[in-house]
């Protein structure tokens, strides 16, 4: 694995029982690169992300992340260095956990067994809460947040982790358009400040109001279908309506675009 490579897939295959979710995918992502991943439902986007942090089991092939192999005994070590922001989950509204504690959880993996958080950990949490504009929510029970607030807090947790790689799995799904835009801007800012490697999965190309659903800093795009990378190239080159229609219509009759193109720049 080259020193400037953060993520490398070599013919990685993942199966869920009989279904092939990832089919001999080979991929190389350089350090500091921001890669968007699009494709229809069931194309393998989430599986690709979960292969990076070892949350799914590889059937064959190899995945290397930051010089480690998450599927070869280094899963926990990789996850400590990879920040994963999944889709907004269903949270039990009565869960006994305050926002500050859930953000602090981002530090637990790195801290290790039997060690308590110190001042540096608490300061990292406060910085992260301020960065996402959620400092005022710090003492609120996490189950009492709205979808948009929860995703901000989840982003704060990922920031507090201070990872070397970010994985974003449709982080704007299920939240209102304004909150979506704010979250995208936050992600852009975070990437600009930290220049970490990022993979960003999105189902829709554009938000409902026509704005691009990928942050500006995303310069490279992967198009996935049937568990394979169908196209891989500069975002500008792949921003082609005909290509998008082909990508989505290959698997479903659903319209590929969330809304009519409003010139928001894909």
């Amino acid at each position, binding site marked *: 694995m080259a020193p400037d490579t953060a993520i490398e897939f070599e013919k990685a295959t993942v199966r869920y029982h009989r279904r092939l979710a990832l089919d001999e995918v080979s991929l190389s992502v350089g350090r500091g690169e921001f890669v968007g991943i699009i494709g229809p439902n069931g194309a393998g986007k989430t599986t690709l992300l979960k292969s990076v942090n070892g949350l799914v089991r590889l059937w064959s092939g190899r995945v290397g992340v930051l010089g480690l192999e998450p599927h070869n005994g280094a899963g926990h070590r990789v996850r*400590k260095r990879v920040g994963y922001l999944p889709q907004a989950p269903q949270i039990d509204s009565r869960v006994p956990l*305050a926002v500050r504690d859930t953000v602090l959880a981002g530090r*637990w993996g790195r801290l290790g067994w039997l060690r308590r958080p110190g001042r540096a950990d608490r300061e990292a949490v406060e910085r992260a809460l301020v960065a996402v504009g959620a400092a005022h929510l710090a003492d609120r029970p996490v189950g009492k947040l709205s979808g948009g607030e929860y995703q901000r807090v989840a982003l704060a947790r990922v920031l507090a982790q201070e990872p070397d790689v970010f994985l974003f799995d449709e982080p704007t799904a299920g939240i209102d358009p304004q909150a979506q835009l704010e979250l995208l801007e936050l992600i852009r800012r975070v990437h600009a400040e930290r220049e970490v490697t990022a993979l960003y999965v999105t189902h829709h190309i554009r938000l409902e109001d026509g704005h691009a659903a990928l942050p500006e800093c995303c310069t490279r795009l992967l198009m996935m279908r049937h568990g394979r990378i169908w196209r891989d190239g500069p975002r500008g080159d792949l921003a082609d309506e005909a290509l998008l229609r082909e990508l989505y219509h290959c698997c479903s009759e659903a319209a590929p675009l969330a809304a009519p193109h409003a010139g928001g720049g894909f």
Partner: protein
Amino acid sequence: MMGWLGDQFMQNALLAGLFAGVACSLAGVFVVTMHVSFLGVCIAHAALAGALMGEWLEFNPVIGALGFSVGAAGLVGPLADKGDLSPDSAIGIVFSLMLGLSLLFLGLIPGSRTEALNLFWGSILTVTRADVAVLALTAAVLAALVVLFFKEIQAVVCHRHVALAVGIPAGIVFYGMLLGTGATMAVSLRSVGGLVIFCLIINPAAAAFQLTYSLKRMFVISAVLGVFSCWAGLAASYFWDLRTGACIAIVSSCVFALAAAVSPKRRLAWR
């Protein structure tokens, strides 16, 4: 009025109530937050199956109960994970196996099965100093584990997927909590009996869950309510000459009802 505290059996019962109250209520926080309340019934029946097997094969029923309880608790986690089941379904499967084994051994034992059945229906009024010492040790070990691994426990019970994603070995922590619950129940069973244990596992923790959004406070409140339920139940039983286990069960249920009535979580909005 204070004469009742002079009786040796009552002193032992109060101490057993203190330690069993703390141990079961701490384990109860795992059970309530992980939504596996049926685990208590499952482990109690595993202990019965183990004790009956001990009587049948003529080895110490307590050893059998301990082995089966811990084994059943240890089986639930991997069964749920490997079988892609909810923990509740895994508990149901293990429970049905344990119930089946209990009935099988019951039929195989010739003559009296008193010792095994006493184990299941043990009474807090007949505990010895040795029982109290074992309960004290159990409570101390469990409390120490909760303090030492609090951050891992918090991450896993509140959002296991996040715990795993940030590099915590969430599976090990989850199985550890199930095993801790199983061991606590198995150790307490002979002293305080299945009914009291089941009440202490569920009610104080469920009451504490109503009262706070902090897991740390939930552990403390649960332990306090567990001990209160035991002591108030013992006092009611002593003064009104009622069955002790029933009194503890009813008091702990009333504690839960009261907590639910005053719960801040029932208010409409967070301010």
